[in-house]
C-alpha cells in the first residue's frame, strides 16, 4: 500500500525498548515506528512479543528501559492517571474481545460513553446502535457476549474499541480462530475504519494473506531484532530469516500483491 500512499510521519515510536519477564527477554533494544493514518501489521513468531508490544503502547505493561512515544507523550514516564488521558486516544481490540460478560452488548458499548457522561441516555443509545450497525450487528443489543459467535464477538469488540473514535486502534490477533468469511469481514471493517477516519491501525497477526491485503507497513519481530518495510519489501528480502517468514507459497506471484486501492477489501 505504500506504493500508492505518501509517506506519513510517525504516530507511535519505540526507542531502544528493553522488556523482560523475569529471565525471559521479550524485546532487546527494540526501535521502530508506526506511521500516522496507516495500517501497520506486526508479525513475528510465537513468544516474539507482538501482543506485549501493543500492551506497552497502551501502558498496560511498562518496559525495563527505553522510550515509547504515542504522539508526543512518552507513555513510559506517565502515571496511571496520566495514562488514562493518553488512552482516550487509543482503542484496543483484544484477541478474545474482552467484553464484560456480565453486561449486554449494548451496555458494553454504552459503558465508556456513560462513564464520561457523553450525552443523554437517548443520545448514547443512538450512538451505540449506529456503531453496532457500522459493524453489521443490528439486533444483538440485548444479547450477552457469551451468546455471540466468534466472528460476531470480534465485531462487537471492534465496535466498542471504536466507540470513542480513537486516533489509534490496536488490534491483537483480530483474525485468529475465524472462518474465512468472518475473517474477510473483519479485514473489510479494519480497512474501512482506516480509510474513513484516518485512524492509525496497529494489527498483530499471524495471517500472511491478510497482511498483504491490509498492510501499508509490516514490522517483523525476529529474535533480537526487528525488520520493517512494505509487505513486498519483506517478502522479497534477501535475508533468509525474513523471507522464510513469508514462505507461504510464492507471495511475489500472488494476486494479493497487486498494488493500489484494489488491494483494499470491498468496504
Amino acid at each position, binding site marked *: 500500500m505504500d506504493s500508492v500512499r505518501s509517506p506519513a510521519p510517525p504516530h507511535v515510536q519505540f526507542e531502544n525498548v528493553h522488556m523482560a519477564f523475569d529471565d525471559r527477554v521479550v524485546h532487546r533494544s527494540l526501535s521502530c515506528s508506526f506511521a500516522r493514518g496507516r495500517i501497520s501489521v506486526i508479525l513475528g513468531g510465537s513468544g516474539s512479543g507482538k501482543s506485549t508490544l501493543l500492551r506497552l503502547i497502551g501502558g*498496560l505493561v511498562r518496559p525495563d528501559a527505553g522510550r515509547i512515544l504515542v504522539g508526543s507523550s512518552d507513555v513510559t514516564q506517565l502515571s496511571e492517571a496520566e495514562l*488514562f488521558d493518553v*488512552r482516550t486516544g487509543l482503542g*484496543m481490540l483484544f484477541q*478474545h474481545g474482552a*467484553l*464484560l*460478560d456480565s453486561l449486554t452488548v449494548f451496555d458494553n458499548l454504552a459503558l*465508556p460513553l456513560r*462513564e464520561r457522561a457523553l450525552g443523554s441516555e437517548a443520545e448514547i443509545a443512538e450512538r451505540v446502535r449506529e456503531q453496532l450497525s457500522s459493524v453489521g450487528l443490528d439486533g444483538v443489543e440485548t444479547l450477552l457476549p457469551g451468546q455471540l459467535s466468534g466472528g460476531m464477538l470480534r465485531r462487537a469488540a471492534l465496535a466498542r474499541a471504536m466507540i470513542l473514535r480513537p486516533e489509534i486502534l490496536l488490534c491483537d490477533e483480530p483474525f485468529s480462530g475465524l472462518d474465512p468469511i468472518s475473517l474477510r469481514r473483519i479485514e473489510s471493517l479494519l480497512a474501512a475504519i482506516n480509510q474513513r477516519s484516518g485512524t492509525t491501525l496497529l494489527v498483530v497477526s499471524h495471517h500472511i494473506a491478510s497482511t498483504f491485503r491490509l498492510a501499508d507497513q509490516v514490522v517483523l519481530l525476529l529474535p533480537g531484532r526487528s525488520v520493517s518495510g512494505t509487505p513486498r519489501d519483506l517478502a522479497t528480502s534477501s535475508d533468509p530469516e525474513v523471507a522464510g517468514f513469508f514462505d507461504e507459497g510464492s507471495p511475489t506471484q500472488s494476486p494479493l500483491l497487486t498494488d493500489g486501492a484494489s488491494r483494499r477489501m470491498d468496504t
Partner: protein
Amino acid sequence: MTVADALRELGFRSLRVVAQLGQMLLFALAIGRATILPPYRLRRYLEEIHNLGVLSLVIVCISGLAVGMVLGLQGYNTLVRFGAEGSLGAVVGLSLIRELGPVLTALLVIGRAGSATAAEIASMVTTEQLDGLRMMSIDPMGIVVSPKANSMVFVMPMLCALFILFGITGAYFVGVTLMGLDPGIFLSSLSSSIRFRDDIVGSMLKALIFGFLAGLIATFRGYTSAPTAAGVSAATTSTVVLSSVAVLICDYFVTALWGFDI
C-alpha cells in the same frame, strides 16, 4: 537440605508474606481512594449488594435456624442436669450474638460470596476484561473492585443479624415447643442477659470487621491472580482458606479488645 538452606527458605517465605501484606495494605488504600472519589456508581453497589447479600439470604437463614435448634437441644439437655433450664434463652442468645452469629455468618458468606467474588475477578483478569476497562480509561478499582469489597462490608452485619434472629427462633422452637419450657422464662432470660453495648454493638462490630476482611482478601486474591485457569482456581481456594483463618484469628483479638463483660 542443610540448616542454612532451611533458614534461607524460611527467610524467603517470611519476606514474601510481608511483601504480600504490604501489597494488600496498598490495595486497601486504593479501594478507599476509589470509594471516595467520583464517579459514584450507586447502580453497581445495588447489583453487588444483591449478588452478595440477597443471594446469600437462604443459606444464612437456614443455617441460622439449624444452629439455633442444635444449640437449643444441646443447651436444654445440659442445663436441665443442673436445674438451670430456665437460662436457656440467655445461653443461646449470648452464644449466638457474641460468637456464633458473626463467625458462622462470615464463614458462610466467605464460602458462597467470597469465593464467587475472587473467581469472578480472576476470570476477568484471565479474559483481559480488566485490561479492556483500563484501555477505555475506566479504573477497574472503581467499577469492579470497590463495589464488591464495600458491599461485603455492608451486607455482613445484616446477614449476621438475620442469622442470629433465625438462630434464636430455632432455639425457641426446640426449647419451648418441643421441650416444654415456659415461653416467658425463655424470653425474659434472653432479654435480661443481653447488653446493648457489649453484645449487640460488639457483634455488629465483629461482622463489619469480618466483612472488611472477606471483601479485601477476595478482591485482592482475584485481582492479583495469574491470568490462567489455574490462577482462577488458586485465587478461589486461597480466598476461602485465608479469609476463614483471618476471621477466626481476628475474632479472638476483637473479643479481647472490645472487652466483652462476663
